[in-house]
Structures are given as C-alpha cells and as structure tokens.
C-alpha cells in the first residue's frame, strides 16, 4: 500500500502545484516539491534494509480481474536503486527549477509535467506487472514529448519532440507486443512469476521473438545506436528536464528493464551478443560524436549516449558479471551528469548562450559554479577518488578478458575525458570570449538554437545561490560516494544486484591492468584535448546520420502512401471495379470447391409451367440485354420494365402470387419513377453528357472539363467552379417537392425546348 502511495504522491503533488501556480512564486513551488521528493527519497531509503533482508516486496491490487490483470508493484533492490535515483535527482532538479523558471504560471505547468513524469517513472521501476510497466513506460515517453516541446513555437523543438516520441513511443509499442508474447509464454503477467520462470522462458520457441521486441523497446528508450539520434534532438527541452529525464532517469528506463529481465531472459547467446554489440557500438559512437558538438547540452547528450551504451554492454556480459559495474555506473553517471546539465543550464541562464565557442573564462565571475563543474568533470573523467573512477574501474575489470571490448572502452573513456575537459576548461578557464564568430565548418544539421533556453534574460544575471546548490550537492555526492564506498554504495549495489559485493577505490591486490588502462585513458584524453585546435577544424563527414535515416523512412512511407493515393482516383466506376475485382479474387478461392452434381436431365421442360417459365426466363434475359444495348434512356427503362414483368410472371408460376403481385406493382412504379427522373433531369445536360461519352469512346480520350487543383502535396480541394455554385445557378432552383415537377416543366417549355420534346413525344 505504501508503495502505491509512492507512485501516487508525485501525481497529487503535480496537480496541486498546477492549481497553486498563481499563489506561489516559482521558488516556493520548487521548495515545496523538493520537500515532497526528499520525503519520498527518505522513505525509499528506509526500505532498503527491509528489502535486503526479505527479498522482493510485492503489492497486488485488483485492476481488471476478468482477465487476471492486477495493479501490482514489485519492490526489490533494483527497483529501489532506481526509485532512489528518481527521487534523489528529482529533489535536486526541483530545487534548481524553482530558480530557473521566472514566470510562476509557466513554472506551475512545467512542475506539473515534471511531477507527472516522476510518478510515471516511479511506476516503471516499481511495477510488478508487465502491463503496468508498459503503461507507465509510455507515459514517460508522453511526458518527455510534452517537456521537449514545452517551449513551443520553434521548428527544432517541434521536430525534436515529435521525433523523440516517435522513436520511444514506437519502441514502446514493440515492447508492448514483446511483453504480451512474454506474458503468453510465461502464462502470467506478474513480474515476480515471470522472473522465477527464467529457465522455461529461455527454452521457449518464441524466445527470439519476444526478446527481440523487448530489446528493441529498451534500445529505443535508452538511445542506443542506431536509434540514438532522438536524444540530442531532445535537448530543446528546458535544461532541468534534460537533466532529469534525458540523462538521469528516463533514458535509463531501458537499462532498468534490461537489468530487470536479466534473470528471466538474460545470459543467452542472443542476449549477450545483441547487448554487447549494440552497447559497445553506442559507446564508441556517442564518445566520438560528442567531440563534434559546440553546444554544451549537445556534448552532454552524446556523452550520455556513450555511457548508456556502456551500461547496456555491461548487462550483456555473461553470468551476471557486468551487473555490479552497471549498478555503480548508473549511480555515478546520474550524479555527475545531472550536475553538469544543471550547470549548463546555469551558464546559459547567466550568459545567455550555450555555445562553447562563445564561452570562456567565466570561471572568474562564477567560482562556485566552476568548482562544481570541476568536481563533476573529474568524476566524469574518472579520476580517483570520485565515484566516476570506481565506475570506470569496475567497467574495465569486467571486460578485461575481451580485447575488442577493452579497446572500445578505453578509447571511449579517453574521449570522455576530453569532453569533460572541454566542458570545464573551455567554459570556465582561458580568456573571456564574447560572441566569437561561428566557425564555418559547423554542419548545418547539427545546428542548435543557441541561447534561448531561459525565458527571460533580463532577470537574474547573478546566479541565485539555490541554483548553485543543486549541482553543488550532486557533485559533492560524487566525492562522498567515492570516498565512502563501503558504507554507502556497497549496500545499495548489493541490494540492487541481489548478492553481496565489495567495492574498493583501488584494487586490494595492487596495480592491475584495469588501473593501467584507466591511466592510459586519462593521459590519452588529456592529449586529445591539448591538440583540440587541430581536430576542431576537421569536418568529419558522417555518411549517414540517424536523423537522415528517420527522415528518409518517413519520406519512404509517404511516397508509398502517394502511390496508394493515386489509386484513390475519386471515380465511382474505378471503385466499383476494385470491389468487383476483389470479389472475383475472393470467389476464386471458393470455386474449386464447388461440386454441383448436374441433375439429369439438367433442364426439365416436362410440364406447361416449365415451358412457360423457360420462355419468361429467356424474355427477362433478352429484355435486360436490350436495356443495356439501347442508348436512349427511355427505351432502356421500358425494356427493363419488361424484364421485371417477366420475372413477376415467374413468381406467379412459382406459385407465389403475393410476391408476383408486389413485383408487378413495384415494376410499374420503377418504370414510372425513371420516367419522372428523366423528365426532371435536364434533357440537354443528359444529351451532352451522352455525346461526350460516345465521342470519347471513339476518340479514346477527352478533355476533362475541370482539373482538380492541388495546393501542395496532399491538399485536396474541390474545383472552385463547383464549390461556389449557388443554389439556383441553372434553371433549377431548389424547390419543394410539390412544386418542382410542374415548375421544371414550365421552365423548360419557356426556354423553347418543348418542340423538341414533343417531337420525341416523351421526355427522353
């Protein structure tokens, strides 16, 4: 029950803040929420011993009992780790946001979204049922979408928002089917039962299918190569959202689910190969691409991608070898990256730009910020005794046996050092720069809208102390956690991976290969940074970027759509023909089965009734044929009447006198009706249309009287001539049923048509 409250409280808080947004200043809103989040954090922290002792706690409430669906929560060490992460980073971000946002109404809206996200994210990590998990998972995508687009009318933000939702929401749907298949295979949707069923699941014939789909969902959420491109695009979100969602929590949901399902699905050939390949590729790609960035948040986004790759690769290690490193990495990354994002926002807030080329030497004014950046950057670079160092060490130790992975990790680590140095040195140290001309080689597709992150630049150019407090705290925590490994980190990590582990800053056995490589990476990174003047001028051509693939896919789907649209010609006959053709195809499957034994004789003409019936049948067919052949409508209608009467005669012979009587009357009526219609449609028009028809048949084609104008792709408009036709253009006003026939008659006669009509005698 208490855990259900944990999930519910953020939603309640969010709604309350939204309604209180006119009463409270942003700072007050922030403080209120910080307090709430901190309470949740403390509560979750207090559960840690209980979970460590008892194992997983489950909470089940009925939801859709008819189909055995429950609202279930499943709290174990892994869930708690992530829950602590969400609430912990959340408190820091809320505190920060209170100062970051100037407008109270906007702040209220923003906080409401952030809290809704928090609640959803907590539901993801505490969910005890895969359906609950999926729903919460998609909610986080929606909230991310709304937060990315929070600033509104800007093409980049719009595109980024839609792209991120397409990728993560779409991946979520793949995950959905994967989870359905998984539930089907396991026979339950309860997470606890699925996890205890791992052996059977790994042997299941559908294993490949559901694992593939679930991996797809996780990879899309955690921005794995080649689906990574949405994350940099998502940097249009306000910085607190980027810090919270796009580095610390939401993007780690994929990692969470992989780790969560590891006992059930993990450690097979498919799993390990997929995760380590994709993870390592992502790690390298992210680290390399980070170098090309000029935007502070761009650099942070790509290094985040790189880190996520590392985490995924770790979960792909056989025999749970990588889980310890993953758990440490998650915490370390959240701490330093959260701090760095908040700092980037603060820099933007005070200077009005995030372009690294326009920044430099601001450390003199902002010593506190510079110090926080230095600490967080050191953790990112993996310098002892910070937590980042421990994370890198455990990572290197895990892959120590695999040369290729080791190389990738070392190179990536080196490039991460470079990125960290750039973030610190090029922003805070060196000569102050203002508005340097932008280098020409910045590729256009990587262009970011610099400097419109804050809403009101006129206010608070001095950094509010609270705004420094959050990143400062997070950075300090990196140090504390690194120094006090055993009392702080070890229990958490042990609980998360479900077995007792020991953590150490330096290997007890002395210097080993991992430590050496760590040093190499550090040196290499510094070296690369030192020569940045050289490689910053390189323009590395990217053969295909993810964005291009995404746009290309959309275009391809659209062009398929265009081809299909051509079939939608608007012509009734064409539509009829399509239906007819489909019917024939459908019947073709049935026809081979038809085995009617012809009665002998096939035709019975023994009685007078039979003879009469046969005659009537032939008459009906002949009359029908005649109605087709006659060009004049009136004659055709009369022929049709004859056919109808012949059919009536057959009913009479049936014997079904009542049916026959109805048929006779209806037939009369039908003939009369068509004559009325012929009289009331304009004879001229009909004749001209007919002439056109026959003329066209001879010429093969005819000029269309009116082209449909297409304004741009996909826009369909009626031809203007038709659209604005007033009600009574022609001779035919709208008439009440009573008056129209005679009125039409008089009008036609008035136009001098009557002599022609009378020559034909009938309105044809």
């Amino acid at each position: 029950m208490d855990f259900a409250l944990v999930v519910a409280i953020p939603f309640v808080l969010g709604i309350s803040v939204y309604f209180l947004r006119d009463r409270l200043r942003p700072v007050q809103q922030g403080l209120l929420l910080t307090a709430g989040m901190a309470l949740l954090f403390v509560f979750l922290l207090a559960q840690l011993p209980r979970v460590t002792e008892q194992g997983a706690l489950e909470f089940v409430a009925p939801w859709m009992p008819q189909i055995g669906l429950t609202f279930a929560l499943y709290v174990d060490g892994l869930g708690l780790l992530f829950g602590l992460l969400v609430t912990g980073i959340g408190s820091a971000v809320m505190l920060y946001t209170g100062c970051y946002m100037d407008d109270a109404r906007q702040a209220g809206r923003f906080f409401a979204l952030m809290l809704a996200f928090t609640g959803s994210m907590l539901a993801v990590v505490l969910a005890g049922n895969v359906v609950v998990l999926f729903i919460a998972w998609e909610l986080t995508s929606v909230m991310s979408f709304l937060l990315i687009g929070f600033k509104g009318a800007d093409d980049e933000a719009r595109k980024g928002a839609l792209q991120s939702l397409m990728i993560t929401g779409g991946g979520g749907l793949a995950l959905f089917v994967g989870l359905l298949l998984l539930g089907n295979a396991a026979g339950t949707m309860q997470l606890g039962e699925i996890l205890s069923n791992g052996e059977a699941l790994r042997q299941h014939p559908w294993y490949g299918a559901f694992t593939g789909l679930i991996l797809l969902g996780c990879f899309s959420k955690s921005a794995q190569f080649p689906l990574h491109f949405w994350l940099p695009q998502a940097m249009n979100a306000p910085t607190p959202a980027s810090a919270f969602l796009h580095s610390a929590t939401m993007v780690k949901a994929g990692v969470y689910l992989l780790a969560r399902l590891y006992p059930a699905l993990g450690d097979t050939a498919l799993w390990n190969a997929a995760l380590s390949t994709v993870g390592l590729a992502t790690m390298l790609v992210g680290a390399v691409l980070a170098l090309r960035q000029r935007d502070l948040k761009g650099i942070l986004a790509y290094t985040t991608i790189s880190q996520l790759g590392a985490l995924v690769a770790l979960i792909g290690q056989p025999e749970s070898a990588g889980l310890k490193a993953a758990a440490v990495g998650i915490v370390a990354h959240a701490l330093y990256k959260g701090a760095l994002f908040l700092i980037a926002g603060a820099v933007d807030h005070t200077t009005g730009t995030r372009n690294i080329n326009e920044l430099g030497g601001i450390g003199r004014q902002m010593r506190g910020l510079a110090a926080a950046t230095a600490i967080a950057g050191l953790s990112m670079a993996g310098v002892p005794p910070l937590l980042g160092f421990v994370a890198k060490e455990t990572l290197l130790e895990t892959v120590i046996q695999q040369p290729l992975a080791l190389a990738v990790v070392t190179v990536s680590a080196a490039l991460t050092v470079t990125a960290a140095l750039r973030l610190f040195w090029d922003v805070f140290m060196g000569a102050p720069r203002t508005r340097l001309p932008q280098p020409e080689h910045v590729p256009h597709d990587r262009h970011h809208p610099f400097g419109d992150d804050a809403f009101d630049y006129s206010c608070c150019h001095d950094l509010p102390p609270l705004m420094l407090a959050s990143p400062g705290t997070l950075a300090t925590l990196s140090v504390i956690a690194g120094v006090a490994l055993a009392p702080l980190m070890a229990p958490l990590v042990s609980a998360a991976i479900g077995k007792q582990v020991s953590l150490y800053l330096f290997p007890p056995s002395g210097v080993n290969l991992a430590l050496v490589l760590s040093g190499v990476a550090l040196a290499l990174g510094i070296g690369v940074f030192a020569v940045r003047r050289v490689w910053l001028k390189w323009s590395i051509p990217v053969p295909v970027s993810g964005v291009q693939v995404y746009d290309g896919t959309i275009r391809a789907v659209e062009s398929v759509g265009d081809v299909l649209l051509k079939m939608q010609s608007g012509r009734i006959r064409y539509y009829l023909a399509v239906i007819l053709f489909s019917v024939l195809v459908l019947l073709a499957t049935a026809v081979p089965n038809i085995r009617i034994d012809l009665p002998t004789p096939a035709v019975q003409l023994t009685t007078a009734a039979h003879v009469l019936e046969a005659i009537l049948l032939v008459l009906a067919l002949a009359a029908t044929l005649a109605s087709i052949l006659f060009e004049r409508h009136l004659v055709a209608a009369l022929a049709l009447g004859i056919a109808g009467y012949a059919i009536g005669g057959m009913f009479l012979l049936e014997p079904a006198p009542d049916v026959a009587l109805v048929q006779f009357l209806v037939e009369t009526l039908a003939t009369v009706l068509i004559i009325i219609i012929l009289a009331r449609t304009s004879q001229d028009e009909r004749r001209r249309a007919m002439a056109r028809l026959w003329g066209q048949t001879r010429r093969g084609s005819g000029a269309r009287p009116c082209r449909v104008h297409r304004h741009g792709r996909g826009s369909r408009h009626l031809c203007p001539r038709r659209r604005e036709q007033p009600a009574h253009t022609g001779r035919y006003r709208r008439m009440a049923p009573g008056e129209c026939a005679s009125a039409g008659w008089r009008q036609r006669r008035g136009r001098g048509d009557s002599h022609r009509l009378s020559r034909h005698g009938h309105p044809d």
Partner: protein
Amino acid sequence: MELPTLQDLNLAVTLPSMGLALWACVVLAVGLFLPERRRHWNLVLSLGGIVALFLYNLTLFDLPADRQSAFLGMYRADNFTAFVNLIALVTAFFGVLMAYEYLKRTHIDRGEYYPLLLISTSGAMLMGASGDLAVLFVALELLSIPLYIMSGLRRPNAASEESALKYFLLGAFSSAFLVYGVALVYGAAGSTDLSEIFHRVNAGLILDQGLLLAGAGLMLVGLGFKVAAVPFHMWTPDVYQGAPTAVTGYMSVGAKLGGFAGLLRVFIVALPAVSGAGDATGWQDTIALIAALTMILGNVVAIAQRDVKRMLGYSSIAHAGYILMGAAAAGSPDVRDFAVSASLFYLLAYAFTNLGAFAVTVAIEKDDATNPQLDDFNGLSKTRPVLALAMALFMLSLTGIPPTAGVVGKFFLFQAAVNAGMVWLALIGVITSVVSAFYYLRIVVNMYLREGPGEAQAQRSFLGVAVGLAAVGTFVLGVAPVLFLDLAQRAVLVALGG
C-alpha cells in the same frame, strides 16, 4: 403447425432497437409540427429516447435463456446484443449532441436528421441482434440508407452531394453482394437461421461446400464494405470528406459498429465450422489478410492527408483493420470468446475516442463550408486549452498510448491475436501503430507547439458537453475499464440448440 402467440414473440427484449425505430417515427412526426423556435424539441426528444433506452438496455444483460430469443429466433437478445446496443446508443447520443449546433450553423437544420440517425442506429443494433440472415439484410439496409441520405444532407453543397451519390452507388453494389451471398448460403445450407446453418454445416448436411464458401465470401464483401476494410474501403475518405462533419462523426462509428456486429454474428455463430486447415476455420486466413492490408493501407495513406476529415477517414480504415484482427483471432476456437469481447471493447473505446475527435473537429470547423485542415489546429492550446487537451487525449487514444481507452483496447486485440497464434498480425498492428503515431501526434504538435491565429471562437455549449463526455469516457476506459470489460466479457457468441 404451432402458431405463435404474443408472448412467444418476446417483444420486450427487442425494445432497444425496435423501440428506437418507432421512437424515430415519433420524433419525425413531432418534428413536422414544430415551429422554427421550438426546434430544440427534436434534440430533447431524441436524447430522451436514447437515454431511456440506454438505461433499459442495462437490464437486458444476462437474461434467462428462455428470454434470449425473440421473433421466433430471428432476434437474439444475448449479451452480445446488449453490448452492441450499448455502444450504438452511446454513438447515437454523441451523434445527436454534436449535430445540434452544427446543423443550425450550416443551415441544414432539417428535422429529418434526428429520425434518420435514430433509424440508422436501430439498424446497427439489429445487425448485432440478428439471428437470421433475412434480418441481417434488413438491418443492413436500415443502417445504410439513412446514412446515404444523411451524407447528402448538406444540400446545396457539391461535396456533400457527390459523397452521397458515391456512397450510395458503392454501398448498393456491396449490399447486392451481401444479398447474393445470403442467397448462396441459403442454397447451400437450406436455411437462413444462423444457428440452424451452424448445425447443418457441423453435421455435414450442406448441399455444397463451395457454394457455402462463395456465399460466405460475398457476405464478407458486403460487411467489409460497411466497416471500410481494404479493398472495399475506397468510399471512406471521399464520403468522410464530403459529408457534413457531424454526420461523418456518427457514421465513422455507427456504420463500423453495425458492420462488425453483423460480421461477428454471422461468421462466429453460423460459419465457425466452415472447413479450413486444422482447428481454425476456413475464413480465418482471409480475414487476417484483409486485416493486415487494412491496417497498412489506412495508416500509410493517412500520413499524406491535410484535410482533417479525410485523415480521420483513413484513420477509421486503419481501426477497422485492428478490429478485424480480433475477428480473425475469433476464428480459433480457443480464443473465440476472448477475441469477441476484445473486439467489442475496442469498438466501445473507438466509439468514445473517435466521436470525441469528431466533436472537436466540428467545434473548430469554420462556417464557410470549407473542411477543417490540419493547420486549423495550430495554437489551439492557447485559444481553447480544454478543447486542445481533450483532442490530445483522443489522439493518444487513437495511437494507443496510455492513459487512454485506445491502449486498453489494443492490448486486448493484440493479446487475442497472439493467443490465436497470429503473431505476425500483431506485429503488423504494432508497426502500423507506430506509423499512425506520426499523423495523430502531428495534430497534438500543431495544437501545443505552433502559434495559431489566436482568436478564441465562440463557445458551443452542447458540443462542449459532447467533447467532455467523450474525454471522460476515453479516460475512464483507459484507467478503470473494469465495468465495461466485465460486460464485454460476458458477450459470448454461440449457436442455439444442438
């Protein structure tokens, strides 16, 4: 021969559909004598009848077995019927509510709209209740003909008239196929009673297997046309675009509901035993293929649309595909009941969502006889925030993103497909859902992330009520679907006797 008495007809259980048709006559008659300024009585009477029958219909769930059949077996009053009635009455309620101001605004406030809508609704209800192919045919025409007239209601508007003519010609063609199919099935099985057909097919007492298959195929054409399944879908976008918006909204759900009710009724009650490979029935693969084509085409083509009604037209094609997925899954005996209730639940979810979306479309439609375009949604979150929020909810629901009715519905449908062993179909459903996200969310993007003209339009009260109720329905079905799920689960289709 035993002659039926009035009790045998069991008229009380047929009241929802029969009563609605008769009530339509009353509304028509009263409407004739209403002066201009009392026109709102049309609305009041229609809504009153709908609500009363809705409440009465709630008592028709779980009837004792002897009360489940009326008109000597021609009318089935089981839970399936009751649930279909429920959806139909909801649809009619919204159809009336969102039309009232629209009709006035567009100067087509002819009193006929309301009786036509009610009659069409009763046709949809009768489709689900039919125990006999003859009733099915009558119900189909009862459903369709008012719709033809309603699409042409906006005379003198060229688009409306063209759409009516197109709809009529194509609809008449396809219902001719349906009747042809009925005749062939009758010829093969010697009966038009659905349960009787089932038993004769089961016992091998049919004249010819091929004839039965051909008849089933032709009936599929007629019903497929109604639900707008590919390749019988081509009327849909044209008619949706041309018809008056309120009519389109009603039609998008009403016609589909009737079509699916009839489809499930016929194919699951009468023809489950038509031979096929293994356990599955003979028509399962065909319907699955049609479902796949429908999902793909509807979603892919919708991307290119700028006209909102046209886009929603293609979207409705796509949703027909999803429900067909449930119908196909119902071909497997083990998952039949689950698939039927999944389809029904989806129809209900779709009804709330789509009617809501159309109500919003009606609300933003300008008075100058042009159709609303996607760009007309720009900046709606600023000018009319509540409307924008509701529309966002509907779009999420149509995409299948929580916390909405659409995701719960899709969940059941996908699960039905998976349980029936048609994983490929579920996968197509997922991929096309991703595609659909692109065009549904574009509306959300336009509303929230683009600047619009910024002028707040006049509030329209009845429309507001319709949008609000639809939004509540969409949301409640998304988070607490228990009640309706329970009802849907009880809707089981079986043949009588035997």
